[in-house]
C-alpha cells in the first residue's frame, strides 16, 4: 500500500517534470544544450541612493553601439521616475532619471540586451576630433615633455607613439617622471587617464574609454579602461592590458573620459552594481514571439523574469538538488561514509568558486590546521560550545591568513577560500577529532577522504555546463529529481560496500 502510494507519487512528479520539460523543449523550442554561438548578453545596472526628501535627479551613462556589439534592447526600470536620454559630447550618452519627491533608499535599474554585430561598423560616427591639450602645471609639463620626447624618438607613427607612452607608464619605476605624473599607487584608471593626457600632449587626439568585459555570469562587474587615439582618419583602440586585447567582441564600451558613470543630485550615497549574464532566453526569442499570450506569461513567471543578480544565484541553487541526489546514491547505494549528511554538497559548492585542485588543497590545509588546533584545545579541557566557537574563530583566522598569503604569492584563486562553509568545516573538524580519538586515525582519515571524494564527485556533476543549463532553463526537472530521490527512499538492496563487508557470508 505504502509502496503503491510512493510509486504513484513519484510517477506523478516525474510525469509533471518530464512533461513540462518536453513541452518547453519541443513546443516552445527552448534549447537543450547551452549554445556556444548565441552570444546574447544581458547587462543590468542597479543604482541605489539615499534620497534627501526633495526632488532628485540621477544621471547615468549608458552604453552605445560599438564596432563589434549592438544594443538590441534597453529598458529603464524606475517606478515614478521620468527618464530622458541626452548625448553628452565627448563622453557618450547619458540617461537622466528625475523625480519630484523621493524619500529613503531608491533603487533604479537599467537593463540592456547586447548582441555581436553581424556587420562590423567601420564608419566612425564621431565628428573629427578636436585636440584638447591637458592642463599641466610646470613640474608636470617638464615630466611630460621628458616622457613624450623619449617615446617620440623611438616611434615611427601615432600608433607606436601611443603604445610606447602606455608602456612607459605601466612600467613606471617609482620616483621617475612617469611615477611623478601618476602619483602613488596608480589604479588602471589613473594610468589610462594620464596616458590619454600624454598622447594628447604629444599632439595625437586621444581619449580614455570605460567599459566592461561581458562574462557569462558576473554579479559585480568592474570597469575596464582602455584608450582610443585618432589616426589615419579613424579612432583606433589601444588596450591597456593583454586580456582585453583578446576579447574585443566581449568588450562593451560604455562612456569616455574620466567623469564618473553616475551622479546624483538631491540624494547621497550613490552606489552602482553591474551584473552581466549570457542570456538563454533570447536564443529562442523568435520561437517565443510566436507563442500565444498565455504562454508568454508562463515565461515571464520563470526564473528568466528575475533580476540578473538573482538569476546568477539561482543558477547555483538549481544544481544543488542534483548534487544531493548523487549524495543519496553514494551514501545509500554505494555506502560512502561522510562527515555530516550534506557536508560534501556544501564543499562541492565551494569548489565551484575555487576550482577543484585549489579547493581540495585549501580544504585539506584548513581542516589539517584546524585539527592541530583542536587537538591542542583538547588539552585545555574546554566545554563543548565555547570549544566549537574557538574552532570557528581559528578556522576564520586560518582562512584569512591563507587568503592573504596566497594572494601575495600571486594566486588569484586564493581569494575565493572565504566561500568555504566555515561552520560546516568546524563541525567537520570537531567530528573528525572525536572519531580520531574514539576510533583511531585510520577511521577518521577514511571518513574525511570519503567526504572529499563525494564532494569532488558532486562538484564534477554540478559543474557540468549542460547540468547547469538544463536545470536553470527547465526547473521543472527538479520534480523528476525529487521523484527519483523519493524512490531511493525505499531502496532496500545491499550497499556496494556491504558486498565487501559481508563477503564471508557469500558461500
Amino acid at each position, binding site marked *: 500500500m505504502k509502496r503503491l502510494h510512493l510509486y504513484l507519487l513519484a510517477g506523478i512528479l516525474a510525469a509533471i517534470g518530464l512533461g513540462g520539460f518536453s513541452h518547453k523543449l519541443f513546443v516552445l523550442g527552448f534549447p537543450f544544450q547551452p549554445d556556444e554561438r548565441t552570444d546574447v548578453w544581458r547587462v543590468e545596472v542597479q543604482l541605489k541612493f539615499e534620497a534627501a526628501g526633495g526632488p532628485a535627479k540621477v544621471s547615468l551613462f549608458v552604453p552605445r553601439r560599438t564596432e563589434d556589439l549592438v544594443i538590441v534592447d534597453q529598458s529603464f526600470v524606475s517606478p515614478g521616475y521620468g527618464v530622458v536620454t541626452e548625448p553628452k559630447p565627448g563622453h557618450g550618452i547619458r540617461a537622466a532619471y528625475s523625480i519630484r519627491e523621493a524619500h529613503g533608499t531608491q533603487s533604479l535599474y537599467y537593463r540592456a540586451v547586447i548582441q555581436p554585430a553581424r556587420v562590423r561598423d567601420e564608419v566612425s560616427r564621431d565628428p573629427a576630433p578636436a585636440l584638447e591639450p591637458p592642463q599641466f602645471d610646470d613640474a608636470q609639463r617638464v615630466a611630460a615633455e621628458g616622457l613624450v620626447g623619449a617615446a617620440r624618438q623611438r616611434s615611427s607613427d601615432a600608433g607606436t607613439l601611443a603604445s610606447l607612452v602606455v608602456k612607459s607608464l605601466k612600467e613606471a619605476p617609482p620616483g621617475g617622471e612617469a611615477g611623478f605624473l601618476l602619483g602613488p599607487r596608480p589604479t588602471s584608471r589613473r594610468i589610462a587617464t594620464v596616458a590619454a593626457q600624454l598622447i594628447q600632449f604629444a599632439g595625437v587626439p586621444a581619449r580614455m574609454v570605460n567599459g566592461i568585459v561581458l562574462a557569462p555570469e558576473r554579479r559585480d562587474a568592474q570597469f575596464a579602461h582602455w584608450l582610443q587615439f585618432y589616426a589615419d582618419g579613424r579612432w583606433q583602440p589601444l588596450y591597456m592590458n593583454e586580456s582585453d586585447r583578446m576579447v574585443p567582441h566581449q568588450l562593451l564600451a560604455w562612456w569616455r573620459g574620466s567623469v564618473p558613470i553616475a551622479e546624483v543630485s538631491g540624494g547621497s550615497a550613490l552606489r552602482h552594481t553591474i551584473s552581466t549574464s549570457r542570456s538563454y532566453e533570447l536564443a529562442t526569442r523568435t520561437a517565443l514571439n510566436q507563442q500565444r499570450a498565455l504562454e508568454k506569461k508562463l515565461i515571464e513567471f520563470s526564473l528568466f523574469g528575475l533580476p540578473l543578480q538573482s538569476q546568477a544565484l539561482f543558477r547555483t541553487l538549481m544544481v544543488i538538488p542534483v548534487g544531493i541526489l548523487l549524495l543519496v546514491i553514494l551514501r*545509500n547505494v554505494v*555506502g560512502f561514509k561522510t562527515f555530516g549528511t550534506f557536508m560534501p554538497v556544501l564543499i562541492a559548492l565551494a569548489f565551484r568558486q575555487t576550482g577543484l585542485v585549489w579547493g581540495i588543497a585549501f580544504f585539506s590545509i584548513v581542516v589539517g590546521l584546524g585539527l592541530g588546533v583542536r587537538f591542542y584545545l583538547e588539552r585545555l*579541557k574546554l*566545554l*563543548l*560550545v565555547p570549544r566549537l566557537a574557538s574552532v570557528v574563530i581559528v578556522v576564520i583566522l586560518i582562512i584569512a591568513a591563507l587568503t592573504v598569503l596566497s594572494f601575495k604569492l600571486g594566486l588569484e584563486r586564493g581569494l575565493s577560500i572565504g566561500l568555504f562553509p566555515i561552520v560546516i568545516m568546524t563541525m567537520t573538524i570537531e567530528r573528525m577529532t*572525536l572519531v580520531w580519538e*574514539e*576510533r583511531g586515525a585510520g577511521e577518521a582519515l577514511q571518513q574525511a577522504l570519503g567526504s572529499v571524494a563525494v564532494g569532488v564527485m558532486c562538484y564534477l556533476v554540478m559543474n557540468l555546463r549542460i547540468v547547469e543549463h538544463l536545470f536553470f532553463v527547465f526547473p521543472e526537472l527538479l520534480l523528476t529529481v525529487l521523484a527519483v530521490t523519493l524512490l531511493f527512499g*525505499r*531502496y*532496500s*538492496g*545491499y*550497499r*556496494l560496500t*556491504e*558486498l*565487501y*563487508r*559481508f*563477503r*564471508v*557470508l*557469500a*558461500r
Partner: protein
Amino acid sequence: MMNWFRTRALLERNGVLGINRRNAEYILPHNPRNCYPLVDDKALTKQLAAKAGVAVPELYGVIEIQQQVRGLPQMLMNYRDFVVKPARGSQGDGIIVVTGRSRALYRAADGSLLDDHEMGFHVSNILAGVYSLGGQADKALIEYRVNFDPVFEAITYRGVPDVRIIVYRGVPVMAMVRLPTRLSGGKANLHQGAIGTGVDMATGKTLTAVWRTEIVSEHPDTGNPVSGVQIPHWDTLIELAARSYEMTGLGYQGIDIVLDRDKGPLILELNARPGLAIQMANQAGLGTRLKLAERELPALRTVADRVAFARDRFAHAGPAAA
C-alpha cells in the same frame, strides 16, 4: 564487476540483511518513533526495566547539569569501582570504566589514570552532548561496575564482554557474545575491534567469531578458542530477550546483557538500531530468520511459545561447534 553480481546473489540466497533493508523493512515499520526515547536514554531504560522486574546494573547517581560536576568527587567517594557513561551514548562511546583507585587518581579499565579534574571534564563533555546521537544535551550516569562472570575470562582482553540478542517482535532471532580485544580498548563494540562469536540459540553455546570482516576461531589477544563455551543462565537470557518486546514496544531491537558473577544476567542497554555484524558472527543471514519468525508469529502467543520457537528453529544448523 561480474563478481559483484555473484556476491550479491549469494548474499541474497543466504538471507543476509543489508543496512538499507534493515532500515526500510524492519526499523521504520516496526519501531514507532515515540518508543525511541525509552532505549536511547539509558536512564529511562533502567526505570523501564525496574518496572518490568528485570535486573539492571545499580544506578549510583545521575549528573544532569554542569553545576553538579563540582559535586562529582563527593558522589564518587563511596565507590572504589564504577562506570561513567552517557545516557544517550551510542556504540559504547564515552564510557569510562573505573576499576579502582591509586591514591587520589581513578584507575580506568584501559590502565590509564585520571584525576578529579579530568573526570569532571569527561562528565562535562557528556553533558554537552559530545557522545549523544545528534549532539543533544545529555546526562551522565554513574553505575555499578559489573564483575563479569569468569566464564569468558580466557577469551577476553580487559573490559566487559556482553551478550547481544536481536529480538523481532518478541522472538529472539539471533545472538552473539561480544568480546573486547586489545584493539577495541576494552570495549565490547565490534566497530572498535571487539570480536563477536555466534551463539547456538538452542543451547547457548558459542560458535566461531567475527573480527572486523574475518571469521576467526581464536581470540586474537589470548589465543584461546572462542567456540564451544556455554553461556551460563542461557534460559534466563533468552527469556529476558523475549520479554523485552513488551517492555519497550520496539518490534526490532537488540538487547545487551552482561553476566555478573554475583548478580546474574543484567540488562545493560537496549538498542533500536542494532548492527548487522552479528550475521557474520553466526555465519547466518538475519533475513531468513526474520521471515521465518514473521510467518510463524500469529501462532506464538506467549513468551514461552516464542522462546521455544527460537530454540527449536534457530538452532545452529552447521557442523557442531568444537
